[in-house]
């Protein structure tokens, strides 16, 4: 974030600053912790993974001569007896965004060393994530019940089922990993590990609230990917 101070080095804003940071010694991303850079670069790589999935999906969908199922019908839910298009997906989207918001606040309170608030917000995020996964399980079982499989699809093009289960599955996998870590970090926060700068299990580095920001980056990324999946998979 912006207000880093570095002894003997003047931090300038904008592209000028970028040129000077790049030309300086020791670090290129001034004031960004190793762990945070690691998460960013990992996410960049992960972006390419998801992009490749979505690009394959686009290519696959664009080149099929069989009709693609109408997603707003396939993913509609019946409220009473009226089918509401994409209702479940809409709810999932809102749940994920909510959890993203709580995560952002958790990071903020973490930096303010507000241990309690931070912990509760992480817990809230974790529960949001869990709800999302639960709804996804529901959605999957509904589709499977209707006869959609990775290898077949009663509503049209075969690839629909394949891409749907693969992409949402891969995303759901990310969410699940995130949820597990959120619970662990909620525990760590409440236990005060970050105040005590306790070392983690696998690392020689001292702990700190920056770890929550790193986890936050991951969580927001999962949300970010959902934005694209929502637009390309469900709305297309």
């Amino acid at each position, binding site marked *: 974030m912006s207000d880093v101070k*570095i002894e*003997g080095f003047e931090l300038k804003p904008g592209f000028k600053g970028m040129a000077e940071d790049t030309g300086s*010694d*020791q*670090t290129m991303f001034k004031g960004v912790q190793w762990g945070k*850079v690691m998460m960013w670069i990992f996410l960049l790589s992960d972006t390419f993974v998801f992009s490749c999935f979505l690009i394959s999906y686009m290519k696959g969908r664009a*080149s099929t001569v069989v009709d693609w199922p109408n997603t707003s019908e396939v993913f509609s839910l019946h409220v009473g007896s009226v089918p509401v298009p994409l209702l479940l997906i809409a709810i999932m989207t809102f749940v994920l965004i909510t959890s993203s918001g709580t995560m952002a606040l958790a990071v903020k309170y973490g930096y303010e060393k507000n241990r309690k608030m931070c912990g509760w917000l992480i817990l809230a995020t974790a529960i949001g994530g869990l709800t999302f996964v639960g709804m996804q399980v529901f959605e999957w079982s509904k589709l499977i019940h209707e006869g959609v499989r990775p*290898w077949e699809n009663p509503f049209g093009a075969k690839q629909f*089922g394949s891409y749907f289960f693969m992409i949402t599955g891969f995303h759901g996998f990310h969410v699940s990993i995130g949820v597990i870590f959120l619970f662990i970090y909620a525990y760590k926060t409440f236990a005060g590990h970050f105040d005590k700068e306790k070392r983690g299990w696998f690392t*020689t580095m001292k702990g700190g609230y920056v770890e929550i920001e790193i986890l936050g980056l991951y969580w927001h990324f999962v949300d970010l990917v959902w934005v694209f999946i929502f637009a390309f998979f469900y709305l297309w």
Partner: protein
Amino acid sequence: MSDEYNQQNTPLEAQSSETMSGSSGTPSKDIDYVRPAEIPEQDLYHGHSFITKWVFCQDAKIIGVQYFLTAVFTGVVGLILSWLMRLQLGYPELVPFITAEHYYQFVTMHGMIMVVYFLTALFLGGFGNYLIPLMVGARDMVFPYVNMISFWMFFIAVCVLMASFFVPGGPTGAGWTLYPPQAILPGTPGANMGIILMLISLSLFVIGFTMGGLNYIITILQARTRGMTLMRMPLTIWGIFTATALAMLAFPALLVSCIMMTLDKLLETSFFMPSILQAGEVLSYEGGSPVLFQHLFWFFGHPEVYIVALPAFGIVSDLISVHARKNIFGYRMMVWAIVGIGGLSFFVWAHHMYVSGMNPWFGFFFATTTLIIAVPTALKVYNWIITLFKANIRMNTVMLFCLGFIVTFVNGGITGIFLGNVAVDIPLSDTYFVIAHFHMVMGIAPLMVIMGAVYHWFPLVTGRMLSEKLGKWHFWFTFLGAYSIYFPMHYLGFIGVPRRYFEMYDSPYVTSAVGMNEFITLAALIVGFSQLIFIYNIVTSLKIGKPAGKNPWKANSLEWLTPDVPPTHGNWGEKLPVIYRWPYDFNVPGAKEDYITQTTPPSEVINAEVEKT
């Protein structure tokens, strides 16, 4: 837990002037100023037992050696496979036990092993781990634990790969490009267990590599020592860095295509599989697109070939500069060329697909971008040879290998230009011309660099020199031998001999190739066996080699300047080094000696006309 970490390294204090030797005595407050440390000292985990010290070790240097040895092991497997292939091609009657199935399995495993498990792992995992922390002046990689896991992932990937030799049906024989549909259909050897294990192994490799890659990138960007700006890094580091960045962005495409192909195989999804007729039956697949796989594969595959080329470019620049006792010509240009080649390599992938039946209009785009890449590459070649001009060249083994690299690389690069120009590629594609191209540019050129690098850094790693005499023999056998393997292949390609042919001989128009094939096979066997000289040299020199002492080559870069040689865990003893210049100050006019190390402060070389870097 805390006693496992060394706490004695107190953070460096901010001092306005600090010289490493402090011998000059001149008050050097101003010109020697290097701003204080930004990052605190890194705590390191020191192993106590044999297992934590040598097996599950967190020291990047040891991990580097582990990577190196594992990669060389796979390389030897690849080499043996290449002999078997060559035996079949040269003397088909001699080896009746090699059937077509076997042959294709050999080709596939040979290609995949050599490109991914041998060269990529050797350059990035081996040289990267060993050299990055030393050359940028860090105590270790930034995440030593993750680094260790990275190696073990790679190790498991290699085990899975090797296991595929022993499963029913044998390893996959789909060609290293693994093109579906044939990769997973029964007409191809190893279409069941073989291909699945291959895909799993590749996925593990990607995951393991990602962990390593994060380490390399972040160590280079965020853990340099004081004074080490990006533009003062040795080109070796630039090469490895860019290659790693490429890998981080290119491997995802491989991972995705592996996942999708595994699903096609196991769940019968139809990502890459259209309707297919097998043995008179139409299979359950429908509507997929094989070309999509090729796009994904080459979106990974082309950057991949530069992943193995760029570290070689970097390393060879350093070797040439040290042994020609002259600064590398046009350092800045070299850096930009590396970065430019890296960036451009994401926009040229479909030059492997000119005859794949993709949208034909792509040919224009990809031919243009492909030939654009030739410009920065050409600049690098020019700069290497200009470095030799008016230099003071030590004609030792290392230099010989560097020169060998330039010759083979330029040869291979120019055949690359043939292939990049779409109209010229059409007749040549999928013939032995392509085989000749990439063995020149990837099979031997980087290998020459690896060998040169081993001769160069062996004293650093082990404290002993390799034998020069054996080294020269090794060079001449390898260079002349390899040239006689691949040079005739250009001719085979021009007359149209297709690649991946188990045998050719009932074809009337290629009878002239028979003698040539026998010759190539002989050469391949000789080259292979001459590697025994190398191995003998390494093994004996470990015991009886001349002790190297500090900095035997009189090099400038940091890895030679550690307090202990060979360097120990933590690399730098009490204090991190401070850097004042680029690593190429050789034969600076006015300087006392013909080299000025990176840690020599300006106050000590007041009279020399050093370059401001």
